[in-house]
């Protein structure tokens, strides 16, 4: 008999049905991955096996060891949750209580289901932390979540989830919030624990690389429907459903052209420092310094893409903002021989029209109370104020055609719509149109695809490559994703802790990485 048996499960919120007749099962000691893009219903499906969703109507059947979860009373549910099925969440910083030590939280989890005295429970907590590979568990047990690194926090959360020796662990994107170098450690840990305890793991993820490496079986969900399931190797090699094929095929192909000659943008020893408050009275009089970028040097030719790759906190975004003069920087940044330093307001504005930016999150990068026409047309208003309303409208239309949001010649009432009426991919196209309308030479792309679904990522990267060839644009592409660099960049800058650890042409860096850190990144 399977440990978890889900049959014809439907989930609705109000009148909206988000999951439609999903069936799957997980056997003891098995690793099943539930794969899908955002909004596919994978998380609600998993959480509904514990009935953790508020206000959801569940139909169908969820059986755990033959018992019907949907028919359980609160007492039985309580005995099930945490004790037999445990959950670990994506973001350990928000899933752990910040004002309790991790030891106290694990002790609490243990004492909910086991009759143990406080000292006994504490011993169990220390054992648990040791079991998940936390160094010095006797000391760490009294740490608060903020005192731990991201990887340690995730380990602490796993220890908490496993404290009562559950039979099934639901892992909701367990590695998405972690840096690539730590991801593998956490996956290896989960696999080791599974072998040790015959634990079944239901992994929710959008990352196919992860699935390939980790899961025994895969279930693919699209808009609330389970479209395909089967052995991982079979699905990866011979996907049957077109959506699965699309997902697997979502790695963007390299379609970039050859860079031109010359030097469009140059950075010499660019440094970014942020003032940070010192603790106590001292902080009233002097500020400390945090160096986000120390000494980045690079050149960029027309039509060329410089990939800046690094993990969170590596200083890559600070470097991007410094190029745009949005944060103060020292060193030299020159665009077509002109530097930001010492420019008056009018000259600065002129320089800004030649260097534009596209941000990561298209949901926060468009002003929510302006129409598309106002958003895209804002640059024209600043840089070409003499343009009449008709001409401006035509230019906005042309920019939207350029980014493929509207087909040529078709006039849709698109211009008077608001950002919330568009999907993530469409919004990112609008953001690109806003940048391109002022005819920039350089566009800074700050993680342009990382908040988009994988199938959309590919389209946006293709569009960016097209635009580069069409307009001879130079890109500064900031990303943490080595696949994006592989598809787009001509040259690479690898950053770690504010320092450039490696720089060079993309082939050289990716095929013969010199620094240890780059090698680690390549493994992801």
């Amino acid at each position, binding site marked *: 008999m399977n440990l978890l048996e889900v049959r014809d499960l439907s989930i609705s919120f109000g009148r909206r049905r988000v999951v439609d007749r999903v069936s799957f099962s997980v056997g003891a000691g098995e690793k099943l991955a539930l794969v899908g893009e955002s909004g596919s219903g994978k998380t609600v499906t998993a959480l509904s096996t514990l009935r953790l969703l508020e206000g959801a109507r569940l139909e169908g059947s969820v059986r755990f060891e033959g018992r019907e979860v949907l028919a359980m009373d609160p007492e039985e549910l309580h005995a099930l949750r945490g004790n037999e099925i445990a959950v670990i969440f994506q973001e350990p910083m928000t899933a752990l209580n910040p004002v309790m030590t991790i030891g106290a939280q694990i002790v609490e989890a243990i004492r909910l289901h086991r009759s143990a005295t406080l000292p006994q429970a504490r011993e169990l907590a220390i054992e648990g932390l040791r079991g998940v590979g936390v160094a010095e568990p006797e000391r760490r047990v009294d740490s608060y979540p903020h005192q731990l690194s991201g990887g340690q926090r995730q380990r602490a959360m796993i220890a908490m989830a496993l404290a009562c020796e559950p039979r099934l662990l639901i892992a909701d994107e367990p590695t998405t919030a972690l840096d690539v170098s730590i991801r593998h450690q956490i996956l290896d840990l989960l696999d080791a624990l599974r072998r040790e305890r015959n634990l079944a793991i239901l992994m929710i993820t959008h990352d196919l690389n992860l699935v390939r490496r980790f899961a025994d079986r895969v279930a693919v969900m699209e808009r609330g429907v389970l479209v395909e399931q089967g052995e991982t190797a079979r699905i990866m090699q011979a996907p049957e459903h077109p959506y699965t094929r699309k997902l697997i095929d979502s790695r963007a192909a390299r379609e970039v052209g050859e860079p031109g000659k010359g030097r469009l943008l140059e950075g010499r020893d660019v440094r970014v420092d942020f003032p940070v408050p010192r603790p106590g009275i001292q902080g009233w009089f002097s500020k400390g310094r945090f160096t986000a970028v120390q000494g980045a040097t690079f050149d960029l030719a027309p039509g060329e893409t410089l990939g800046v790759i690094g993990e969170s906190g590596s200083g890559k975004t600070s470097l991007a903002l410094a190029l745009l003069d949005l944060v103060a920087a020292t060193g030299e940044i020159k665009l077509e021989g002109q530097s930001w330093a010492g420019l008056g307001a009018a000259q600065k504005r002129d320089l*800004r029209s030649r260097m534009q930016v596209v941000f990561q999150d298209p949901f926060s990068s468009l002003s929510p109370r302006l129409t598309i026409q106002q958003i895209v047309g804002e640059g024209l208003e600043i840089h070409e104020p003499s343009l009449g309303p008709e001409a401006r409208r035509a230019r906005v239309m042309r920019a939207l055609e350029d980014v493929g949001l509207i087909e040529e010649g078709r006039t849709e009432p698109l211009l008077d719509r608001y950002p919330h009426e568009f*999907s993530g991919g469409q919004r990112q196209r609008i953001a690109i149109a806003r940048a391109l309308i002022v005819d920039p030479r350089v566009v800074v792309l700050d993680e342009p695809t990382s908040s988009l679904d994988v199938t959309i990522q590919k389209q946006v990267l293709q569009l960016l490559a097209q635009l580069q060839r069409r307009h001879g644009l130079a890109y500064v592409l900031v990303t943490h994703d080595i696949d994006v660099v592989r598809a787009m960049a001509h040259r690479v800058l690898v950053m770690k802790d504010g320092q450039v650890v490696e720089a060079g042409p993309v082939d050289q860096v990716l095929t013969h990485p010199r620094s240890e850190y780059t090698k680690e990144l390549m493994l992801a």
Partner: protein
Amino acid sequence: MTEGASQNPWRRAWRRFKANRMGYRSLQAFLVLFCLSLFAEVLSNDKPLLVRYEGRWYVPIVRNHPETTFGGDFLTPTDYLDPFIREQLARPGNFAVFPPNHYHHGTINYFSREPNPAPPSRENWLGTDDRGRDLAARLLYGFRLSVLFALAVTVVCTLMGVVYGAIQGYFAGWTDIAMERLVEIWGAMPTLYLLIIFSAFFSPSVGLLVALISAFGWLGIAAYVRAEFLKNRTLDYVRAAKALGQRNRVIIFRHILPNSLTPVITLVPFEMAGAIGALTSLDFLGLGVPPGTPSLGELLAQGKNNLDAWWISVATFLVLVVTLVLLILVGDALRDALDPRKEIAEEAP
């Protein structure tokens, strides 16, 4: 992309507000009451709206005429409630159209058959207060004064709070620190003492009260606006506007301000309810509006002093409760309508 007509975010919030029946009905009821009270002079007055006397037309509500006009003996303004004048106006050919309630808020009913305060009767629907003034008239005018007062206070407070908070939040840093210390010092002033001191220096007036209450009422709004500005100034769309070379002024007014107003709008009904409460309690203590002004607080004080005249306290209490409950229901519905989580829930495809 969703199908159908495009909707501006404010319009969507308004649609969500309308979907909340309780809140929407409360707003309608409040507006009806307020509009009626704006026409208080036509609804409750001791002067007729129109008089025909010996073949001539008079409009006493606009221009008063001496008693001699209507056959009286004196040159004093006509008292239309005087039985003699009534008799004159009732003669064949003459007539007078009175407002539904025959009393102004200051009119004393000299012809009451009962001692003051008189219980409800056919002449005085809700009875009279301890000086023989019609209670219904005083409540109507008192309600109007309270709401107008609250509107004035709210407008002044909101403007001051938004401007102050916006400057603090947008420029941040030292500007913010200095202005925040000022707010703290200002907020630590004992408001009630100041009111008592001011009422000793100046002759009491509604304008003075608006100034004093507003002077301390904007602090809360400024705090909200400051926080919103601090948050919104770091958002990507503000950065994108800066990268385009947009001017500070335009960034503030076009990009940040409209997205920072949600808490301000949500606060407006509560702010109004608070102002009405403040005015009422000051009047109750006798520190409020000048004597003779129709005021709910003064009526409550009368009710306390004349416990046997139950109609004073009960009627005043009901007017206050209905007003405040309506405002709070509107505020609740507004808060729900502008809740960012609901906006996101609606956005989800």
